[in-house]
């Protein structure tokens, strides 16, 4: 059965001449090609679609990686923290600034709009969030930021986790030309001031400040 290509009649719709003319023209042109319902469904499969795909998903399941700490930040990891903690960023070894978690490549990109997405969890221990201007002490909020760079350009960035263990989702969109594109995911914790406790009083172990884990990166490309 033929399908209307435009001007599909609806109940109680006003009729105009052009809708029939347009459909007549569509029907006539279809004589030179196959009517859409004449194609057997089996003629189209995911395998035949792939070469001319209009979209592609790139997925990096970081928790399946071969890293020492899969799915985690893997830079600035202090393994001197105590057992009731994680190997993560402490002020003993990390004093702030952007760090790159991982780099991946979007291969075979045909050009077009691309949504990049980072799903993960992180920890910021949240001490020293003091906001008391009258006290004369420095306002010194801590938070754990993340950002996604594509070919070196920041596409998405968030101020990030302000306290505790929290889950986040960071995403943005970018127009890309055809080719291979390098993606980098970075993190940054606010550095210390002179007032931070860096080590525990009794155990003298470095105090965990920041950690990222359970991360998955995905990109959804819609080709032109």
């Amino acid at each position, binding site marked *: 059965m033929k399908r209307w290509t435009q001007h599909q009649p609806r109940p109680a719709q006003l009729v105009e001449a052009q809708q029939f003319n347009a459909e007549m023209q569509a029907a006539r042109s279809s004589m*030179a090609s196959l009517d859409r319902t004449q*194609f057997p469904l089996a003629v189209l499969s995911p395998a035949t679609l792939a070469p001319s795909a*209009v979209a592609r998903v790139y997925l990096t399941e970081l928790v399946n990686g071969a890293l020492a700490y899969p799915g985690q930040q893997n830079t600035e990891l202090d393994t001197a923290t105590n057992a009731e903690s994680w190997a*993560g960023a402490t002020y003993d070894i990390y004093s702030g600034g952007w760090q790159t978690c991982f780099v991946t490549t979007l291969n075979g990109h045909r050009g077009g709009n691309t949504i990049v997405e980072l799903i993960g969890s992180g920890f910021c*221990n949240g*001490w020293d969030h003091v906001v008391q201007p009258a006290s004369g002490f420095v306002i010194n909020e801590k938070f754990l930021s993340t950002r996604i760079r594509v070919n070196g350009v920041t596409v998405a960035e968030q101020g990030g986790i302000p306290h505790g263990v929290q889950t986040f989702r960071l995403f943005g969109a970018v127009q890309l030309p055809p080719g291979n594109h390098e993606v980098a995911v970075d993190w940054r914790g606010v550095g210390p001031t002179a007032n931070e*406790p860096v080590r525990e*009083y009794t155990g003298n172990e470095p*105090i*965990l400040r920041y950690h990222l884990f359970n991360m998955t990166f995905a990109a959804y490309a819609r080709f032109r």
Partner: protein
Amino acid sequence: MSRINRPPVLPGDPANAAQLNAAYTDFSQLGAVDQLNTRDSGFDLAHFQAPATGNGPVIIRSDSANVGTGDIYHSASPVAPASIAAPPTKTVVSGVLSYGANGQVLADGQVLRVYYNLAVRPKYGGTPWDSPGALGQYDVPVTTGPPPNVFISDNAHFWLVQLEWDITSSALINWIPVDGAGNFNGVVVAGRTGDSLQTMRGCACVPAWNLTYNRWRDGEVPGPTPSIEDRRIGWSSASTGYVLLKNPLTSRTIYGLRLVIHGIYHPYRDATTNYAVLDVNLVSGGNTAEMEYDQGNITAIFMREQ
């Protein structure tokens, strides 16, 4: 090579009987409609409108379901209790995203994307972080004593909202964690129950509390009796996503998706691995801990990888 080689009908051509009959004769040839005649740009809406073949141009299937109470006013919020013994007590959030009797197959070259959110509010009474045996008790020095040091929680306690699926039957009675996530029921390190940080896919973490001392100075807190500052955590959203590419995993037929809540967890580590372990010592001596929850939503998308 195509067996239909007659010139096409062009705009303005007469639509006479002979021309139409010739075109229909072409199409009726045995094998005339094959891949050579139809590949690439020859496809049309009828093919893409067939979700059963998995041939949607991008999205194969998209579904959404509300979970939880549906109450946005937090008037009578259900509560998930903190576990006081292992394995963790898992509170099932009402509502399921169901795929019906036949389920939905995640086939070769397909991607499953799940996004969910749930309104949550961690609650506690007393000072559960100070309970005997509670994890994460750091001591920090005081400027003037006594005492020379005071305790503070490291703020690393957290609840988990976890995504589960049933890949056994449409009866929806065989719920297990999604691929890449553990069930947090087993002993993993130093006699403690939990899972490693690399087996937490589909989990959303919610901080249990947020504490600090005011006016840190030179790594110390002002004495002689510094008061801890307890910043209550209000209603927020436990929200995350789960992306699964079928290859190279084995095929999955998914019958339903749901959420469970359990906790409270805390970091733990050994020489090589970071863990999330259940802290069963928080609720004692009059200290309480629980998490309220309300409405939420699960959205799942099946799409082609390319």
